[in-house]
């Protein structure tokens, strides 16, 4: 029986050995399935599409990219296993991924240990604070979203804010960040309500906020929750304007909430959603238009900012490998850290040894929904 088991194990193991290639191995662990699939799916599609494009154009420094994507389903333990596999088995020189914060945080020790540069696509600020030499990220942080929203509120004279947050990872993280920066931004949180991400009615929470004297309402959440909040906000005829987060920056949100209810809702988002409305001289315009057109032609789906994060990560990596002129992970890391003036879908990226996020508040546009379309708030 010992022999029987051994041969089974050996056969199973040889079945998943991947042939080594002389190309540049770039790894990714993304949530292509599971609850975060609406983030991970466009990310994976973007990576595949853009890598094909780069390879067709001759690769990086004359070498083809060999892209290895694993689907971690948003599970931290699985992501950790795939991280080990990418490092030990696939011998990648750099990794993109971690669709959400949990898997990203679980993978970091592996890459730190193996000294492999890692560009995360997840939102939370704790990924890059404190700075880990091997870890970078491309999306805006939820803290930046809070600051952008509060700045817009203050400019309109709203200083009393009612918060309503989803109890999922995104909602909780942003709720904590907003409460942290409220005082510095000059606003006071007068109500702090929470809902479950699957809840079908947020009327009680909004009624509490209505009675709290809030001048503006901020909803931190993603998925269907914000759409329900938006509908209930209109049904209750609340005067205080509603602000959503960058987590709802997709066409689907307007469809779910309904054009009428979504009218006048404001949110911070990357310029990708309003590519055509950018002024002609804007350096970001050709980048976001090019990516949007290519993505929509390739997949037949509406572009989202989430796939854009993967786009940015891949091209930051490409530029770094070209600059380093080598595929040594340490050389690539150094080159990534020197990234300056890189124009991506999220904005202009300037990394430094102290800043592995590289984006400023200018990278966010304040959008307002008018007649079911995104418009830039002047």
């Amino acid at each position: 029986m010992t022999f029987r088991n051994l041969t089974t194990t050996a056969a199973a193991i040889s079945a998943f050995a991947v042939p080594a290639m002389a190309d540049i191995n770039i790894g990714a662990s993304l949530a292509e399935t599971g609850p975060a699939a609406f983030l991970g799916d466009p990310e994976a599609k973007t990576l595949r599409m853009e890598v094909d494009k780069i390879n067709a154009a001759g690769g990086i420094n004359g070498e083809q990219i060999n892209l290895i994507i694993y689907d971690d389903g948003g599970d931290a333990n699985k992501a950790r296993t795939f991280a080990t596999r990418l490092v030990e088995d696939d011998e990648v020189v750099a990794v993109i991924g971690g669709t959400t914060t949990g898997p990203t945080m679980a993978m970091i020790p592996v890459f730190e240990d193996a000294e492999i540069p890692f560009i995360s696509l997840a939102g939370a600020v704790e990924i890059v604070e404190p700075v880990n030499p091997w870890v970078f990220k491309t999306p805006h942080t939820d803290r930046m979203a809070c600051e952008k929203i509060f700045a817009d509120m203050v400019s309109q004279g709203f200083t009393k804010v009612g918060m309503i947050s989803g109890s999922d990872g995104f909602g909780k993280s942003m709720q904590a960040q907003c409460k942290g920066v409220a005082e510095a931004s000059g606003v006071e949180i007068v109500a702090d309500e929470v809902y479950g991400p699957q809840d079908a009615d947020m009327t009680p929470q909004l009624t509490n906020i209505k009675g709290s004297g809030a001048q503006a309402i901020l909803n931190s959440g993603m998925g269907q929750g914000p759409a329900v909040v938006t509908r209930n906000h209109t049904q209750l005829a609340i005067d205080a304007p509603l602000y959503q987060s960058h987590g709802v920056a997709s066409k689907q949100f307007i469809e779910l909430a309904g054009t009428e209810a979504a009218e006048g809702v404001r949110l911070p988002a990357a310029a990708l959603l309003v590519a055509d409305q950018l002024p002609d001289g804007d350096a970001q315009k050709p980048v976001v238009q090019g990516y949007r057109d290519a993505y929509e032609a390739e997949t037949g789906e509406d572009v989202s900012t989430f796939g854009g994060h993967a786009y940015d990560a891949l091209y930051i990596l490409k530029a770094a490998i070209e600059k380093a002129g080598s595929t040594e992970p340490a050389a690539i890391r150094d080159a990534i850290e020197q990234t300056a003036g890189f124009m991506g879908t999220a904005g202009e990226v300037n990394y430094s040894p102290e800043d592995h996020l590289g984006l400023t508040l200018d990278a966010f546009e304040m959008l307002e929904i008018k007649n079911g379309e995104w418009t830039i708030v002047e």
Partner: protein
Amino acid sequence: MRLSNKSATLLVLAALIALTPIFFPSSFYYRVGSLIFINGLAVTGMVILIGYAGQISLGHAGFAGIGAYSCALMPVHWGIPVLLAAVLGAIISALLAFLVGRPILRLKGYYLGVATLGFGILVYMALTNEAWLTGGPDGTQVPDSGLRDAAKAIGINLKNSEFWYWFCGVVLMIGAWLALNLYVSPTGRALRALHGSEIAARTVGVDVARYKLQAFVISAVYASAAGSLVALQNQFVTPDIAGYMHSIEWVTMTVLGGAGSVLGAIFGAGILTLLPQVLTMFAEYEQLLLGLIMMLVMIFMRDGLLPSVLRLIRGKDE
């Protein structure tokens, strides 16, 4: 000399753990190995509950969550050393299993399944929602256990994945040894008796409620230890560890490999842990294949893979 069933099982297990690394092309396989051992440990506990006592639990990942989060939270909030936290986590799991088990083990069949499922979901929700304590859905860091450094100090210098392979392997051996001892003990006989027929067991003087509760508590400690091992190895936990899919995975592993046999269940854990790694190329079909394998095993090998195969071999011998 004929080896007892217990010694044979332990020998086979030890040989497998010690010899498989010969075939490992890279240290990634140590990581997969350690996951198999961790699942194997949890599943050994499930064998005691499902295979010996004939009870079902769809909520054991809840205990894994308690074990894992004990390692993460106790050191940070109360300054308790990580390894002691793992032990305390197991004790908390045992106490909780005792309190929860008393009422719900009066239930049978579906009702017991649903009640345990509810327990697991409760733990998951508590870990997700009490963000002030647990860090919420994004998870939380687990301090370094210092085990690897301790091994280094006595001259055993291993890579991270290699170290956890051997460590989890040893823990699994201990777990399997205890479970096999239990099988032949008076408690084990009582459990098997009540599995066969509760009424018959009661008439010969077995305290049915007490023994069921014992099996439930013991298996909870196994699950808690498995959860702690995941936390210690990953140095990061998310509430997913207590998710109900995780509980169901463990039941599936147990039943697939053979609920009545420790080695069989560990074999089941091995297959279901390996399969997603083998099938990454066909990630979309993974669930399909898993379902098909489950169905075939249930139809043609009702005792589970290993026991059925063994019977086939023995049948030919005799």
